[in-house]
């Protein structure tokens, strides 16, 4: 196989990405913000009636077993998947090339595969005040019983669409449009000032 020469990806957050502690952190840092920079971000969609076949393909190709139910998902280290709409799933991998791995399996009869690796920016917020800060942006219930581990949610902030996955008890991964990512990041930093935040 010929060696691939993929362009080096630049972060849209770079001019506003300042590692270190910021805001009101004298009494400790209550949230940690970071850009996770996954190599692959895919959107998979099944035609009506083909959802189970697509879920089975995700299990075989990515090794991720989707739980039943709307917005169900699973996050396991390097890879993650969650439902964000009926019959539609976001699949994320730390490594590049996940689209090629799926390409042979998702036939036109089953559904579609869209590679959004360069189109979305993944931002992680973690820490004891993560729910508190997230609740300032999105009008959804972030409590653990309502938003279980691994689950995904589609919502928006100021008309900017966002997909959110709970990847830990006090950790969320937010996928936003790359073109709005810097603006969202700046807002997220401002919102985190009151609790003290660290950029890693």
């Amino acid at each position: 196989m010929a060696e691939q020469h993929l362009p080096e990806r630049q972060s849209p957050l770079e001019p506003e990405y300042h590692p270190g502690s910021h805001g009101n952190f004298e009494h400790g840092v209550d949230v940690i913000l970071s850009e996770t920079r996954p190599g692959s971000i895919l959107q998979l969609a099944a035609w009506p009636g083909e959802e189970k076949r697509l879920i089975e393909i995700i299990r075989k190709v990515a090794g991720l077993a989707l739980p039943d139910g709307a917005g169900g998902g699973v996050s396991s280290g390097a890879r993650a998947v969650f439902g964000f709409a009926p019959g539609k799933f976001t699949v994320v991998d730390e490594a590049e090339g996940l689209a090629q791995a799926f390409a042979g399996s998702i036939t036109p009869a089953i559904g579609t595969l869209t590679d959004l690796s360069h189109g979305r920016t993944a931002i992680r917020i973690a820490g004891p005040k993560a729910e508190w800060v997230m609740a300032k942006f999105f009008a959804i219930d972030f409590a653990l019983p309502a938003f279980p581990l691994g689950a995904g949610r589609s919502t928006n902030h100021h008309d900017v669409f966002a997909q959110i996955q709970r990847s830990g008890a006090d950790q969320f991964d937010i996928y936003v449009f790359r073109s709005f990512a810097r603006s969202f990041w700046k807002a997220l930093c401002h919102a985190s000032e009151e609790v003290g935040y660290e950029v890693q």
Partner: protein
Amino acid sequence: MLITCPYCGPRDVIEFTYQGDGNRERPQPASQNLDAWNAYVYDRLNPAGDHNEIWQHSGGCRAHLRVVRNTITHEILSTAFARGGHKSADNRAEGRS
């Protein structure tokens, strides 16, 4: 106003886009029945009470929904995926005449 999306659960109305009256029956594109087209474009029930509506959860899962809303109280009486071909408040099936 909260609308309960069948996929996402209760969400603020700001996430939704109104897609129009849910009582319309769109004629076949090739239809030359001018009365049917006239009814589709202009005739509205305009009830003071329960009203069949089509909404899209445009700021969420983007599904199109069949919603019954009370036009006086803004109470949302039911929501369902539009794709399902559910019957509406006046028991009129999704029309394709």
